[in-house]
């Protein structure tokens, strides 16, 4: 077998680097989000937030991580140890795995080599990503059950109901995106938006809003954070976790937020495309690399998460279910029909 240097670089080295980067990317975003959230909420609440470690508290996430690593890892004696230990890994792993199909930028040509900003490309990438991201509920239920605590159990049960309900509007709105772009491939979806010269958010605003609400519920963020409602369930499914295992859940939650923001950006806001991709006199915007655009866009949505958390009270369980079955599901169904009809006509 003759192995030349090019094959090693392009077929082995670069994919491996990409994989490593794509695993590190959510982790680094978690760190960034930790700082953004703490400072952002402090800003909303007229206080300062962490500003001691490093410039403007920029090293605070590292301090937090070190604290978490060195905290005692308490394992309840009555817990189911196998599942108790495996659950955080399941949650974090699924959150990170889902990133492999996300295009974090546009293709960049370096000489004759086309550098792509995604780990894998698949004609059904969208389906796989949605499937994997919904797997984190398994970890949550396992954690809730294995902790042998009633608060955790309630949190786990709530998460199942919440997830099963909110999968439906997510699926229905994603279908409209698939209808509009004619593909389940993320890259095709982005390219279609480039072709049409309009972001899907402006083409299908209802899908965009419904997807955002349902996605917010799926990553258990305020105002849908009934799974870990701190004023009733203490900390929900991760009440009994401490140390780095709690850290896993924590990272998974933030990674999930990054994932949802990425999906939002890819589906509705043109992924790594610059704003107004087809306006001629804004040609210079194309010289800003795609991943920068992507980053700016997801940061907006990540900040939106923080903003919403700092503003709204929490939904009660029944209200949450009523919202999805009475409003989101019919609305997304109707939206799907409308989009399908328009797509047939046009």
């Amino acid at each position: 077998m003759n192995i030349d240097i090019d094959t090693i670089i392009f077929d082995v080295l670069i994919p491996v680097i990409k994989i490593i980067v794509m695993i590190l990317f959510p982790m680094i975003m978690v760190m960034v989000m930790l700082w953004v959230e703490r400072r952002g909420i402090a800003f909303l609440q007229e206080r300062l937030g962490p500003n001691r470690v490093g410039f403007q508290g920029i090293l605070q996430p590292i301090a937090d991580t070190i604290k978490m690593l060195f905290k005692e890892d308490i394992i309840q004696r009555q817990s189911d140890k196998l599942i108790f230990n495996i659950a955080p890994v399941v949650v974090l792993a699924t959150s990170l795995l889902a990133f492999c199909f996300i295009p974090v930028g546009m293709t960049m040509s370096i000489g004759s080599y086309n550098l792509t900003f995604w780990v894998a490309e698949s004609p059904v990438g969208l389906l796989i990503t949605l499937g994997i991201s919904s797997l984190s509920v398994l970890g949550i239920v396992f954690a809730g059950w294995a902790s042998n605590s009633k608060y955790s159990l309630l949190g786990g049960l709530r998460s199942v109901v919440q997830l099963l309900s909110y999968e439906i509007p997510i699926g229905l709105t994603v279908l409209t995106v698939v209808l509009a772009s004619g593909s389940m491939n993320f890259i095709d979806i982005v390219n279609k938006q480039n072709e049409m010269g309009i972001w899907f958010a402006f083409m299908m605003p209802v899908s965009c809003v419904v997807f955002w609400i349902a996605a917010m519920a799926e990553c258990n963020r305020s105002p849908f954070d009934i799974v870990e409602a701190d004023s009733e369930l203490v900390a929900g499914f991760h009440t009994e976790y401490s140390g780095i295992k709690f850290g896993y859940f924590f990272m998974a939650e933030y990674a999930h937020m990054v994932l949802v923001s990425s999906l939002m950006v890819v589906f509705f806001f043109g992924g790594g495309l610059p704003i107004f991709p087809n306006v001629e006199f804004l040609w210079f915007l194309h010289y800003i690399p795609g991943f920068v655009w992507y980053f700016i866009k997801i940061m907006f949505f990540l900040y939106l998460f923080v903003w919403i958390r700092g503003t709204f009270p929490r939904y009660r369980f029944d209200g949450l279910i009523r919202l999805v079955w009475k409003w989101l599901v019919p609305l997304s169904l109707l939206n799907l029909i409308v989009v399908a009809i328009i797509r047939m006509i046009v």
Partner: protein
Amino acid sequence: MIQSIIFYIFAALSVLLAVLVILQKNVMHSVLYLSFTILAISGVFFTLHAEFLGAVQILVYAGGIIVLYLFVIIIVNLKEIKAEKRNIFPKFFIVCISVLFLAEMIYIFFKNRISVPANADFPEFEALFEMLLSKYLIPFEIASILLLAVLIGSIIIARRKLLHDSD
């Protein structure tokens, strides 16, 4: 080459995990291993380039059915399975079935030799959709109506039990 190695890893894993599923006494552990088995099987599908099937495997089995299993187990509060005392006849039956199954597997194995993952690179799900929505449209719709009936029926049964409880 790398692909076939990965395929065999996934295949071996799925068999191993499936064995672990039935060896557990704790139901929850069984479900844990079952979910891993399903993931491994979807890995097998991915290496065989049946990406749509793999995705559906994750979405439906791991995301849906396993979660429902968990829900039922938590609500019914099954913790451990106690070994039943069986007569000689069922034991004999079980052994026979296993032997038959093994024989069949060996026969297939030797007939086809070692099957290498097909390297087909076509989006098989398009063909699938086409078939479902053209040639097999009526069975497809009938199946969906059947599922709906099952859904409604289960709700009615559950409701009736609830109503009886309140009386």
